[in-house]
């Protein structure tokens, strides 16, 4: 069998390989299960990425980041260009980690600093690090953001009626259950793209609920 396709997989998924080279690559894919699996995974990620909205950020976080870095809040605009999705599996894994860490960091920046360290009534068990794309570093970033918001919400729970607090706790408990189930499933199948994205989605859902409820509690 020919050598594995390696970096050429990305170009193949992007339709940047043609002619005899493409025919040879496709022939290799029919014979090589390892390359075929990687190709399918890349194709699926590409479709997911293409399906994402090109949404602008809700607010510009750079001035705050720049102030912390002691830099001028100047951003040089880049010329607009067409979205191109091209990456390898290791790149995908790294990108997933960076994305999760950045998302959690953005949430932290967008919420308040300096919260009481007391145990929060909204606190949930820490999500254990797992194998696969949603790895320890990414999950820890989510955990930090979630803890922060739970403490913030706990400090403002007096502004909410007991029925609402109970409903929030039940909802967060349901999400925690989903997180634990996704975690257990990932232990069985750590390379499942769906389970990785499902866990990430569940963590993100919890962040979203906490952030929204905290905002509403602050405004009430």
């Amino acid at each position: 069998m020919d050598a594995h396709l390696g970096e050429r997989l990305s170009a193949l998924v992007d339709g940047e390989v043609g002619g005899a080279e493409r025919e040879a690559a496709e022939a290799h894919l029919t014979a090589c299960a390892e390359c075929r699996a990687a190709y399918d995974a890349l194709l699926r990620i590409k479709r997911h990425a293409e399906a994402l909205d090109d949404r602008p950020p809700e607010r510009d976080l750079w001035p705050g980041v720049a102030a912390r870095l002691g830099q001028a809040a100047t951003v040089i605009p880049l010329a607009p260009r067409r979205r191109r999705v091209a990456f390898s599996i290791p790149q995908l894994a790294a990108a997933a980690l960076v994305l999760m860490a950045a998302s959690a960091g953005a949430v932290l920046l967008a919420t308040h600093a300096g919260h009481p360290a007391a145990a929060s009534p909204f606190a949930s068990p820490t999500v254990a690090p797992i194998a696969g794309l949603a790895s320890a570093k990414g999950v820890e970033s989510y955990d930090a953001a979630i803890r922060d918001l739970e403490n913030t919400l706990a400090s403002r729970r007096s502004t909410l009626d007991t029925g609402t607090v109970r409903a929030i706790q039940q909802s967060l408990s349901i999400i925690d259950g989903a997180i634990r189930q996704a975690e257990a499933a990932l232990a069985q199948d750590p390379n499942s793209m769906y389970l990785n994205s499902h866990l990430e989605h569940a963590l993100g859902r919890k962040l979203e609920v906490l952030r929204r409820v905290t905002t509403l509690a602050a405004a009430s």
Partner: protein
Amino acid sequence: MRPILALAVVPAIALAARALAAQDIDTTIAVRTGARFELNSVSGSVKIQTWNRQQIRVVAETDGARVDLDASAGSVTVRTEPRRGEGDVDFTITVPGGTPLEAHAISADIEVNQVCGEATLGSISGGVTLRCANGDTQIESVSGDVEASDVRGHLDISSTSGDVDVSGVHGDVSARSVSGDVSLERVDGQDVRAETVSGDVGFSGPIHDGGRYAFHSHSGDLTIRPDGDINAIVSVSTFSGDMESDWPMTINPGGGYVHPREWEFTIGSGSAKLSLESFSGTIYLRRGGASHRGDR
């Protein structure tokens, strides 16, 4: 000055920034076309309806809370200020058709009937019901049920622990809950997304070529009933759930992702993208459009 503006200015000056005493209120303000109405309430109830006059009428039955009212020809803002722990106010608001609305409450139910303008409505522990809107519409509750019908425009609707019921929408929809069911009936949009964690998700409506449709639940069932013919790449993901489809799930040779728990199949030309995910629930893809809740 045009007569309609003359009508508007006099009462507007009289009422501007006026704090009304803690008593029942019934006041009517002349406004110009397109004037906005905003309400911030604590508890009680909020009903907003329409009439054929270029005026906004505010009726408030209060148990002691103060009601502040700011008015001009271009907008009317009403705010409840609790006094001595009393915050209950029952509002009945009547506005011209098409008035853009923004109403927020802590524990009051909000009901809007036939105003048919843009609307932003939110209640923390109350329910929200909107019948008829045109333009961007946002509805949110934490622990109450939310319901929207007869909407033309983009609809963003969510409840944390309540049910989400949507029917008769021409436009894109984003609907979310955590523990409630999400039901989208007769939704005609190019970008439709619904998700919940422990509830069920239902959808009926056309799947347009080039459109994007995503329905996700963790432990609930999905019942998707496209109207008419569809052309879509269907992506299915589950862990311990199941899938039943009225369309043949034929995996394309040489293309499409195949995994015991994740697979894709194409219906027709595959122009639209239809994503169906349920971690442990059953996914039903049914022919036949509108359904009733619980009908698989």
